[in-house]
């Protein structure tokens, strides 16, 4: 009864303050951005400049095959203006450098193709077929995009020279070496021989859906972490904690009611984003327990941090640092190549990937339940420490 009254009171206060509406407003804005500004399968803006050093019939034959397979669709020719430029190109294999200088502008009509993703039909990249190797070099230099010079060898096989910008990762350059070292047929044979064990779901989230796990992690758990602190300091400012301290209500009840308000707010704001974007795809029976468990854990962390300070302004330095630290796993989520081991120790790291798993609709149920239980138990432990700390400091 006391707990229910305290929760009801906290909800009334939250709904009469602006933090609650900020959270809801942010959720609505995020939903609008997802639905309006982010396409489910956005076309790539990647361009590639290619010169085929082969007879035109061979090139036509090659493209006819790709067009038949649906991998490429022809587009209208593109007028490209090349400005005067000077640059040097270094050969990675030999180490030699060749300088180029073009004093006059040049305008060409480039034959244009679009490479299509056969799975979802989106445009993977736009390919411009150029007439000379020098045009490839000039355009690759001026646009910062990949260029390729494809030559037909004596034995009827293609050899590739790529024009890169120099900042590409070792992984990419190695991949290009491997990919072009042998014929595709040989590679496919080799790949077929490998025993492949599927570790995760092969399902993919589209561009819009893949933003959802990050949004609900950062706008949910992290906002909860921040807002619970502001609620607590508001009570301290008004002195009501001293009034509560002389009633049979316990500090534990008080702190728990704060986390429950945050959980309710996050439940509403996350639903505003998740349900319209994801529809029935996620497993909601796993989503909501995990969402509540993680929000509870972060609210508990917020309360523990608050227990060390008298006011919001004094806690700002630590608050800011923690918010940044908790957001770091987002880089790993959006940039797959950035995934250092130390990042996995941040609590937001597993949250992001579990949400992604849930959004895919085929989650590893025992894993999600274990993670939910882990965050719940961890949150309770943190709250217990905050409770002990607050018992000594809350009324002083």
């Amino acid at each position: 009864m006391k707990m229910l009254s305290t929760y009801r009171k906290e909800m009334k206060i939250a709904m009469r303050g602006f933090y609650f509406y900020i959270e809801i407003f942010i959720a609505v804005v995020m939903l609008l951005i997802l639905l309006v500004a982010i396409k489910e399968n956005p076309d790539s803006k990647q361009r590639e400049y290619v010169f085929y050093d082969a007879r035109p019939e061979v090139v036509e034959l090659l493209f006819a095959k790709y067009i038949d397979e649906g991998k490429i669709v022809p587009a209208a020719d593109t007028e490209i203006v090349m400005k005067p430029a000077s640059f040097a190109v270094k050969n990675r294999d030999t180490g030699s450098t060749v300088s180029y200088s073009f004093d006059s502008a040049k305008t060409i009509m480039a034959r244009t193709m679009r490479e299509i993703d056969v799975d979802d039909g989106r445009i993977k990249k736009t390919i411009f077929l150029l007439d000379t190797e020098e045009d490839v070099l000039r355009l690759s230099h001026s646009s910062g995009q990949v260029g390729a010079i494809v030559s037909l060898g004596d034995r009827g096989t293609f050899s590739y020279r790529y024009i890169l910008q120099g900042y590409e990762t070792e992984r990419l350059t190695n991949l290009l070496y491997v990919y072009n070292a042998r014929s595709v047929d040989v590679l496919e044979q080799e790949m077929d021989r490998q025993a492949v064990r599927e570790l995760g779901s092969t399902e993919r989230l589209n561009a819009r859906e893949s933003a959802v796990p990050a949004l609900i992690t950062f706008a949910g758990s992290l906002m909860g972490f921040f807002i619970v602190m502001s609620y607590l300091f508001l009570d301290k400012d008004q002195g009501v904690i001293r009034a509560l301290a002389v009633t049979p209500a316990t500090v534990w009840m008080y702190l728990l009611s704060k986390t429950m308000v945050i959980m309710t707010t996050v439940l509403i704001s996350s639903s505003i984003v998740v349900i319209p974007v994801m529809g029935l795809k996620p497993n909601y029976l796993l989503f909501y327990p995990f969402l509540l468990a993680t929000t509870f854990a972060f609210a508990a962390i917020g309360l523990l941090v608050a227990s060390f300070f008298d006011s919001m302004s004094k806690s700002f330095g630590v608050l800011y640092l923690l918010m940044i630290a908790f957001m770091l796993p987002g880089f790993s989520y959006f940039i797959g190549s950035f995934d250092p081991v130390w990042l996995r120790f941040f609590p937001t790291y597993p949250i992001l990937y579990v949400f992604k798993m849930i959004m895919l609709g085929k989650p590893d149920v025992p894993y999600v339940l274990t993670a939910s239980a882990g965050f719940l138990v961890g949150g309770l432990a943190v709250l217990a420490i905050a409770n002990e700390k607050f018992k000594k400091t809350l009324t002083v």
Partner: protein
Amino acid sequence: MITVRNLSHSYSKDGKMAVNDISFEIERGETFGFLGPSGAGKSTTQGVLTGLLKLQKGEVTVAGYDLNKVRNERFNKIGVSFEQSNVYSKLTALENLKYFADLFDVPTRDPHELLALVGLEGREKDRAGSFSKGMKHRLTFARSMINRPELWFLDEPTTGLDPAIAATIKDIIKEEKAKGTTTFLTTHNMYIADELCDRVAFIIDGEIRLIDTPRNLKQRFGQKLIEVEYIADSRPVKETLKTIDDGDRRKLAGIVTSYDIVTMHSKEATLEEIFIQVTGRGLL
């Protein structure tokens, strides 16, 4: 109702004591005034007794509960009115009282009745944040009565209130006393203490200098005085004479027979004067 034995409390580790080895007892139904200037140790003592401050040293029993063994149920018997009003500004006056009523395990008073008692009828549905300082203070005062406390802690209950409201608050305290409520009144207002308290304690520099009834204190330390104003040589003259001094009594008789008296009043020593006499310090 309250037993305090050798209570000491310090906010620092340098040995400086906010309250130093004080002892006193308060009987059931008694109104006990704890008097002293700011920083004397009044709020610290009340903080320990109400549980807001942890008991560091000494033995304290409040409403039958030993403070060394913390039990929240003791708060069912206790009401606390703070000097600084502390209500939920986003809740209405009624919501504030109803919420606190829900926190107690004992039958509580009707919030409407309490609001009417402190002159807040008609403002039940207004948010406390829109109230004046005095209204918030009255709401804080009303809240302290919500659980029908057997032991009532009042910290400067009339400070900052206009005289009419202050008189209402004093009347409520007297009514509660008549019902048998024990009151621990912390104040530096000696007139309030004199009017309301059965006994008072003078505290200064964390130590109790004296505990007694206001009447006994006046008898012990006060002297009956007569203030007389008369006309001598066409000029007004004002004198204060002691009724227990033979010389003053003869002088008074001479004045009455020889001069035109303008005013003449008997005067008792005030608690404030006695406090200054006992402690050598003022109350502010």
